[in-house]
């Protein structure tokens, strides 16, 4: 077993443990317990922070997309989303097209 295999195995186990702990905790309290609302708020905030960072300050391969192209992709998605009253797939495709188009212009 290589280091990468061992790291994968251990990450799988910690991920399953986090999910199991969450299911056990969430199943042990009343559905209207503040813990449930707090956990939902933290999950949504994490997702929102993930999106904000991916657009404004990405790392890795995403960082190779220039900021104007990332913003163009987000704007094209948002405009299509508003124009179609919340249709996600067309907005997603338009966002990726907007990003590609902006990259062609900005290089």
């Amino acid at each position: 077993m290589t280091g990468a295999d061992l790291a994968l195995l251990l990450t799988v186990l910690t991920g399953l443990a986090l999910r199991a702990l969450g299911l056990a905790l969430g199943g042990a309290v009343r559905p209207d317990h503040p813990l449930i609302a707090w956990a939902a708020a933290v999950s949504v905030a994490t997702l929102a922070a993930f999106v904000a960072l991916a657009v404004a300050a990405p790392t890795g391969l995403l960082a190779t997309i220039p900021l104007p192209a990332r913003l163009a992709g987000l704007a094209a998605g948002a405009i299509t989303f508003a124009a179609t009253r919340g249709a996600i797939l067309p907005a997603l495709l338009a966002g990726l097209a907007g990003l590609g188009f902006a990259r062609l212009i900005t290089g």
Partner: protein
Amino acid sequence: MPPPFLTAARDALGAPAFAMGATFLAFGAAVAEAGLSLPWAVLCTATVYGMAGQLVLLGLAATPGAAVAPAVIAATAANARFLPMAVALAPLLGRSRARWLALPFIAITPWAAAMRRLPALPDADRRTWFLGFALASWSAAILATALGHALAPHLPPAVRAALLFANPLYFALLLAADLGRPGVRGAVIGGVLAAPLAIPLGSAWGLLAAGLIGGTLAFALQRR
């Protein structure tokens, strides 16, 4: 097979599968680029099943001779959202033992879909709906990973970067669609405002900190 399972599987194979497919395709290609095997890529998607942690793991563990413990700790921190997500989802999955079947599939995409759809379904249909959605999106993710690994030599970095962008774009749209749900608007604002805190901490720990701080503040303000 009960209808909720099929309805959910069909739902999953639209925008969710497209967004996940694009991201996991990029992940499969990145694994091939790093010199790791197809089974490693597919196993990683099928069992870690959380893109933030997978990318951190790949980045830290793929270099030969890399230390295992820091890679595992950082990947776990990057996927720490599994814990609050599972807590929030648990009441919707009911109290029977069968809810544990959902365990390996608790990840952003099925979670976000479940939080929107399950409250409107009868209790009896909720677990079946979740499993239908989860199995369809999980299968799509695995297929896309394998395809990405095979296609790696034909995917230039600019294309892979664009595919990776599908993921944040999809979540931005999901959040926009959910702004009307109770508690969501405050938590979105909290998360965005706390995001700069993540920059000095690095991607794995920073996301965890931003989510905890932004979400807790939003929660506290909403309860006042």
